[in-house]
């Protein structure tokens, strides 16, 4: 089954770039992404720029409303997604627990829709 892991964190949480903690976390990211690839479970993964760079579009009554910022202002910002292909939810949760940001942010595990599962 295919799942998307939606990775979130508070921008001020987690290790700061340039510190040994940051390097240690980067190594962990490298490990888990490498293991995902090695297990044949990786479908796609991309990191996103900050929410400060986001623009949201809504069309209402044929009029486009373009606004600054993400869909919803939340404490945690959405910074990356990974699509994985694994046996079941327990396997997906196992990978989610290994995401370094799970210790200070969160990882939402969402199955792709049923139409996406067979492709």
């Amino acid at each position, binding site marked *: 089954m295919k799942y998307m892991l939606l990775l979130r964190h508070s921008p001020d949480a987690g290790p700061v770039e340039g510190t040994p903690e940051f390097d240690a976390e980067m190594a962990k990211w490298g490990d888990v992404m490498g293991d995902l690839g090695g297990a044949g479970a990786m479908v796609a993964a991309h990191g996103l720029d900050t929410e400060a760079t986001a623009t949201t579009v809504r069309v209402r009554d044929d009029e486009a409303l373009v606004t600054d910022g993400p869909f919803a202002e939340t404490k945690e910002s959405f910074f990356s997604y990974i699509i994985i292909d694994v046996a*079941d*939810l*327990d396997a997906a949760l196992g990978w989610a627990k290994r995401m370094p940001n799970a210790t200070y942010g969160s990882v939402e595990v969402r*199955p792709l829709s*049923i139409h996406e599962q*067979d492709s």
Partner: protein
Amino acid sequence: MAAAHLAIERAYREEWTSLLATLAGQVGGDIGLAEEAVAEAFVAAASDWPTAGVPARPGGWLTTVARRRAIDALRRGRTRIANQAAVEHLEALIRDNNDMSTGDRGHSASGVADDRLRLIFTCCHPALALDARVALTLRAVAGLEVAEIAHAFLTTETTMYQRLVRAKRKVKAAGIPYRVPADDELPERLHGVLHVLHLVYTEGHMATTGDDLVRSDLCDEAIRLARLVAQLVPDAAEAHGPGVPAPDRRTATGPHRR
């Protein structure tokens, strides 16, 4: 006829969990589909047995009817290609059961025990909301009617029905596996199961101070299910422990304790 009704009641009490647990495993862990098929088999029994007589092997009769209903549901399903394998498997099981006398479910006793455990762990999966875990456990594992569960938790039948539909849909759509957790997850997941049973017990226990007799059934169900878990996971000291409803320790720690 009274005899037929007694036989149906007895079969419901003794066979519901095993029928549902085994069938769910044969349809890829789709608890919702299995539950409907087993419920329909009992409806069929209620209309057939009083006139045609109680079959020699009630469990076998119910198993076959439930499998046929499951095949019908799988054929109606949206993912027909994926369902084809399950349909063929069930059809083969029906054929084999008619040819051989391999027991009611063509299944060893330990196989049935495994199925019941898989059902309990799936209903109590932490990916489901706590109230959904409680409702699903009472419906699928304990076989309580939706109206009974709604009454016990002081909500409407519609609300409870919808809660169950959402829970069963999530089990299927989110890919919650139909299995007993691996050894390293087992203690934590077992704790989760006992937490659900404890909630059921507490809910019933608080009600027994009132005049609502139906809710005392919850205590009985919690005890029955805790015994079942203790019996199926003999090493689960926690299931025999003081925090768990087991007033009759002689039965709770009976023949399964070695």
